[in-house]
């Protein structure tokens, strides 16, 4: 959420169940303003708060001109100094991140070792169904290889499973020092996780971003937030992430009031699994959308003032059980 509206939305965040220590709010605010001025950012956002076993991470990002394209992410633990987040990683690492199911340790230099990858693949061959389930979500989570899940049929998924198993085996055969290969620094893991969450659960209301005729994207200056008639429709919320930025190729599912300068992002109504967004109006004032796939990711909007923001407060773990839970 934008640092400018940070103070105004704290009550809304509380209602949404986000954890923000009261004493740390002014510190965060000040340090983010500092971050903005140092990096000449157009605006700075507090992205969220990732709970760890020891000291929590705070994540923020800023952008200069393009609010979608060139965002720079930062993280901090002491809330005073912000470190830049690593930006490049291999697909292997993303795979590993998907496999890790435990909490963050709380130290960026901590090295997580995935020991039993072989065992895991073995397990999955034993229960192919589970593998399918798992895989489906895994792929969706990735940002490198975007497989369009919609096109997958039952058979496709099976074939994918078989392939990955092969890959796993070959990998494990090739690697001389498996420990080195199956280890990941927590800093990288944090970056990848944040990117995943960002891609899948960061949303903005429709009309917030405005595409100019020359292709630049700006924040619409007079956007006042969605009103009560609009919040009920999932089509009015759009993914921010880059992968969804491409115009979706005019199909017949274009909304009737299509506006090219606003509808250049993907709306959330097609997300899988269906029902992974839970939107409610709390205490007559705060409109809150929880993402159930990434528990802790929320979009909040104060209906009276139209101020809105996105925040993540959780463990950085995906809820793989979601289809059984809704």
């Amino acid at each position, binding site marked *: 959420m934008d640092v400018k509206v940070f103070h105004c939305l704290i009550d809304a965040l509380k209602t949404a169940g986000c954890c923000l220590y009261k*004493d740390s709010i002014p510190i965060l605010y000040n340090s983010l303003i500092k971050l903005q001025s140092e990096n000449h950012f157009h605006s700075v956002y507090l992205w969220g708060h990732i709970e760890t076993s020891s000291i929590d991470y705070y994540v923020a990002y800023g952008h200069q001109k393009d609010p979608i394209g060139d965002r720079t992410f930062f993280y901090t633990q002491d809330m005073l100094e912000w470190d830049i987040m690593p930006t490049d990683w291999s697909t292997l690492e993303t795979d590993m991140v998907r496999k890790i199911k435990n909490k963050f340790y709380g130290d960026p230099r901590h090295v997580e070792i995935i020991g039993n990858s072989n065992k895991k693949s073995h397990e999955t061959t034993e229960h192919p169904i589970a593998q399918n*389930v798992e895989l489906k979500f895994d792929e969706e989570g990735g940002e490198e290889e975007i497989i369009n899940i919609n096109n997958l049929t039952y058979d496709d998924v099976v074939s994918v499973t078989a392939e990955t198993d092969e890959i796993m085996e070959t990998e494990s055969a090739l690697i001389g020092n498996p420990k080195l290969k199956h280890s990941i620094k927590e800093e990288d893991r944090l970056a990848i996780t944040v990117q995943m969450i960002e891609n899948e659960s960061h949303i903005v209301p429709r009309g917030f971003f405005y595409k100019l005729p020359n292709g630049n994207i700006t924040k619409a200056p007079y956007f006042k937030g969605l009103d009560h008639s609009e919040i009920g429709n999932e089509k009015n919320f759009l993914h921010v992430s880059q992968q969804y930025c491409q115009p979706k190729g005019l199909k017949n599912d274009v909304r009737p009031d299509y506006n090219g300068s606003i509808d250049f992002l993907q709306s959330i109504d097609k997300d899988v699994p269906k029902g992974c967004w839970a939107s409610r109006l709390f205490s007559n004032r705060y409109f809150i959308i929880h993402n159930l796939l990434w528990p802790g990711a929320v979009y909040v909007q104060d209906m009276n003032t139209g101020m809105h923001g996105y925040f993540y407060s959780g463990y950085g773990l995906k809820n793989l*059980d979601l289809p059984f839970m809704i």
Partner: protein
Amino acid sequence: MEIVKSILDTKKISLKEIKDNVQTTEIISSHNRSKVSSQSAQFKSLFTCGEPRLKEFQYDININYAIALLKKEDGNVNVYSHLQDILDKILLERPKNPLKNFEKYSMMVKRTYIHNEANFERVFVDNINRNYCFKSLQMHKCAMKKQLEQQKQYNNHKINIRKPEIDQHEEKKSMNNINDIVQVQNLCEVNYMFNKAGYGLPMDEAALIYLTMNEMTQLNKFESIRFWGKIFGIKKMYYIIECKWSDAELERKLMTVNSVSHNSKSSKHIDNEIIYDNSLQQESKLIDTDNALNTENEFESAASYIDGEMAENSINHYDSWISLNDSDSCTAIPRSSSKTLLPPEMFGVGANKNVYFVTNKLNTKWIELESVKPHHIVEARKIKRYFTGKLKNPINSFPKFDGSENDYLRAQIARISSSTQICPRGYYIIDEKDKADLSRISDKRSTNSFISTKKKSGDLIFNKNTKPISNNNLMNVNYWVHKNPHIDINGVTCKLGFSNLSYSKQKEENSEEFEEEDNLSYGENILNSKGDLYGNLGNDISVDNTSGWKGVLCSPFDPRYSQAIMKSHVWPGAFAVAYNLQTDYMYIGWGQKHDSNMLYTIFMDEIKMGNPTRDDTFTVEFEEFTKKQKMEREKYGLRKNKKYNPFPLQFNRTKYKGGEKVITYYTYE
């Protein structure tokens, strides 16, 4: 005057002129019209023929229609009148080149109009739901009224009694009579700590909850009231208040329960009540605070209670709007068909020590949850589902849950409170005096006899001799202890006092983590001292074998005066705060235990057993199939079901929907 006259004259003239003009044009047009109408048959030829004819055609405008069009704009100014005014002006001033300055004239004339349209005052149509605000206000109003009434009574009392010295003392006593009995959580104070801890309630919520709790004290049914927390649902949120029955109330409940289960038709009165309750049981039980607030009489009776009248009828009186399921523990037994199910624990014991009231909206009714049944807890452990926010929603989970959402909610509340209600070590002690009662009660319960003893089984009281623990130590999990007994695998709390605790520890303690039991080794833990009420937090572990709790300081920059928070990793959203001697806990979350992989493992086990609902889950999993594929899949599923020869028969006739679906397919083929 002359000038004015002349102007008027000119105006008249000009108007006349215009009228003449209009008339002439009208004449022309009518002429044309007749022409055109005569020619209309040859419209095509007309259109294609040469220019002169086209020109004629251009005249073909219904002038009246045109005038009406010009006059169409609302208000006193429209194009027609504007043109009129301009012509007036031109005729009046007779400038040299009116065409050149036509725009100027137009502007000038326009400026003279009063600008109605440039009114920046927006019509006030706001979308704020005012009803909600009114309702909340109503609550405040009633609370205020009540307060005033009490004040009045107090003052009256004061005047009546002459002796001022003793009087005040007595007054205080009588005034605090209720509040002495009822321990109400001081939400304002506690909320401050909670806010520091990062969770905490917004002001508007806190105010309403506080009001409600105060109101509940007036009922004289509860011994202690506190706000338990919030549970998010997909559609709505649950606010939950935790109460403990007062002794008198408990006694009454137990009496009704026992007498009913003993000889069901002995006392008509109770029977009636139970029938009434049963009918209500299908709907959920409601406390309509609104009604309550509006009926002042009840509060008067509550005020009369201040004088110390312990009247039975006052309790009965409140039944009109707190309709409680007194009979639920006895109705539960016939309802559950299989004999293996354990009966629920008694009111005031173990998992049912407290009663919970939930609501979706703070300014509406609060609904009492039925007491928890052990098999619900057992089943709730196996499933993982988000709440929807509707209490009556059926739970369609795979390891089946026999009950609707209110049962599930109650079971989760029991689980959460048993494993996350904690306090710093030594802050509370078990009330030793009443320990003997516990065994007696459990004996008596088996024989179904009357119970009229005091029931304070395993009550905790604040330890007056305790000293505040330093913040540094409060961050350490070993300095925290559980306040509630654990719920064992069968879904009941270990009914053991402190004396048997050391024995029970190895077996039943931390049963919440029974899934990972092989990893646990409680025996060697040294901290099993008397201060550990129901187990030390140091023994808790979370999924990935790390500590189940995390201690945080609210503000790391000022450790001395900062509150210490203990956050649960097992139940994300559960936390406890401590500062000096103040300590409290709350839960704000989704009501789900944090455990990766757990669901899978269970699923796998069940699937191996030949799970009929497997195909159902797949339809949830995957995208829409084409019709053909769907048919194929259904066939496939049917064949498979035949092969597996579905599931135990007792599943068929019960509410298990997934099974039913498949069965119908099966039989129809």
